[in-house]
């Protein structure tokens, strides 16, 4: 029966396509996130929770 299922629904392109999408996206966002020019911005972002109670912005 398991074999029958595989024969009737053997579409490996489906998970492979998804894997391809994931790997592509992963490479793009890892590259972007760890790009040198972005370092300062993300370092600053990590402080955001600590600056939520500012009474006077000036």
């Amino acid at each position, binding site marked *: *029966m398991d074999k029958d*299922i595989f024969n009737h629904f053997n579409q490996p392109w489906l998970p492979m396509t998804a894997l391809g999408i994931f790997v592509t996206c*992963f490479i793009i966002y890892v590259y972007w996130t760890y790009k040198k020019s972005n370092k300062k*911005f993300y370092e600053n*972002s*990590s402080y955001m*929770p600590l600056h*939520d109670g500012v009474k006077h912005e*000036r």
Partner: protein
Amino acid sequence: MSSPSAVHRTGRLETYSYDDQIVRMFIVATIIWGAVAMLVGVTIAFQLATWKMNFGLQWITFGRLRPLHTNAAIFAFCGNAMFAGIYYSHQRLLKARLFNDVLSRIHFWGWQAIIVSAALTLPFGITRGKEYAELEWPITIAIAVIWVVFAVNFFGTLIRRRERHIFVAIWFYIATILTVAVLHIVNGLGLPVTIFKSYSVYAGVQDALVQWWYGHNAVAFFLTTPFLGLMYYFVPKAANRPVYSYRLSVVHFWSLVFIYIWAGPHHLLYTTLPEWVQTLGMVFSIALWAPSWGGMINGLMTLRGVWDKVRTDPVLKFMALALTFYGMATFEGPLLSIKSVNSIGHFTDWIPGHVHAGTIGWNYLLIAGILYYMVPKLWNTEIFSKKIANTQFWLATIGLALYYVSMVSAGITQSLMWRAIDVNGKLVYPNFIETVVKIVPMYWVRAFGGTFVFISFLLMTYNLFKTMNQGTIGEIEVFEAYALDDSSLEENAGHHRKLEGLPMVFAVLSLIAILVGSAIEIVPSLLSNQYITKIDAVKPYKPLELLGRDIYLREGCYLCHSQQVRPMAHEVLRYGKNSEAGEFIYDHPFQWGSKRTGPDLARIGGKYPNMWHYRHMINPRDVTPQSIMPIYKWLVEQKLDLSTLTKKLSVMKQLGVPYSDVDIASGVENAQAQAKLISADLMNQGVPKEVEDKELIALIAYLQRMGTDYGSLPVNK
């Protein structure tokens, strides 16, 4: 510094205040419902240790209370905590008051009304019979409506924000809101019969796949992603340290959101689900190790430099332990999804052990830390007693350790006993009850471990209410920030940076990330007619059997009995032929179950005489002396309700079950005729005549039918 980009902000200065009252309301609800959820949890833990704790009352019998426990723990306790934390952090991270106060109140009272509805329906057996999605259709619709209210309030606040960059915690919230909506709607589709009864539009394998896609991701997107978002906000706040690596949090977010959605089929390994779907679920589950541990490491490393405070500060103490348990649970989850490990752990108590390492260890402890942070802030005071908080911490830790160790031991013990085969190829423990008796002592340990956790929660309840009492709400604070105009834009900002400032586009991309995996997993469901080989011998249930099946659902039998014989030598030896996909095509909803406190029932039909079932339901100890099953004596007292049968058959027909018009028109007559046959057999053995129109007759009809269509065919078929 007010902006992460260090952009020099100019423009119009605006004043604003936070709606903290709604946060306070959700906090109080969290504490109350948390206590209720744990009380029910402890009750059912003792019910498993001794059947006498069911007290012979249908409304508090295990099968009715267990869904109440899970719904209360997940949606009432964790749900309210999640809303409190999100509303607190969302406003502060965006420098904006919540979008609409009225929507906030509708959200709060609507959610509480849903919880009360669940508490009023589940003990009465009003259930859809789908794990973690038991609530009947009117409540399911109400959940969707209130969720939309929450979403409008949340996204409305995002639009009115004064901070350009959307902090990573809010990304997790966005993913939560979108994914839970998709999961809830897709899995909740059903056709109503009455106001209290509906049937799932899916059946058998299709229903199983949709259900566990939902079930797994309910854990992922209701108990994990929102709490990771809260972790990214509250751990830095409590430690007064920045997030260890913001860049890691970005990678953590996208990887987790993309991968998590695929892992659902690991709940269905070795079942009749297509092999490739099972493998896919397993592979992506293992891949989850990386983002999960990335998040845990990021959280724990945020505490660098303040480890000395972890020893003394209750907030940090709870958060550090919660992160540790998160790491442990997310290591164990992928481990359990490896097929060979799963063949041991599945259907055993190892799984509740794993689940509670997550829900108690991660959710409860993190919520405790967050509450100990928020309550003093919102009531302008200090924690009432750090000593009580410390006692709570150790009680919870010891209780969870007892719970976890006993359940893993019970699970492995039982599994090894199930699969023990001697040199002659026979089961060493052919009688299922032998394996139950062995683990009952561990059920007692679990019950006492759970009691410890419950007492720890009561201590927190006392401590927090005393904190509230000694504090004051005080005046509403007013803050000042620049309006979000072009001065907040960073020069030469890149694509992802712009994306981080565009909530709607960001939301759409998050949605696509979860839909890719979902679509691929759901495709086999939509095409199930093509790949499930029809078995001619499998026919729709007879009317009386259908009514019996509804009683099976009502009593929550699926919570202790599976209906799925896996293709393993010991299972085939114990139960009979392994299950096939074609057997379940008329099962709306499927009833494969996820736990075997009692034996599998897929081939129970015809195994015992009617009289055995009659005696078994009235008092299981009459036929199996050491059984821990509750008594179901009300089934011989309550009359079978035939009034909705015709409608039920019609709805089933609409769902694709091949009942003819004649079948539907003569449904009641057929049911009565079949009931007469079964009761005549029972009366011949001394059972009083009055039993003929009682519910138990329908349940016996269903049990005797189960698995017989395909099960009776020769093996080579």
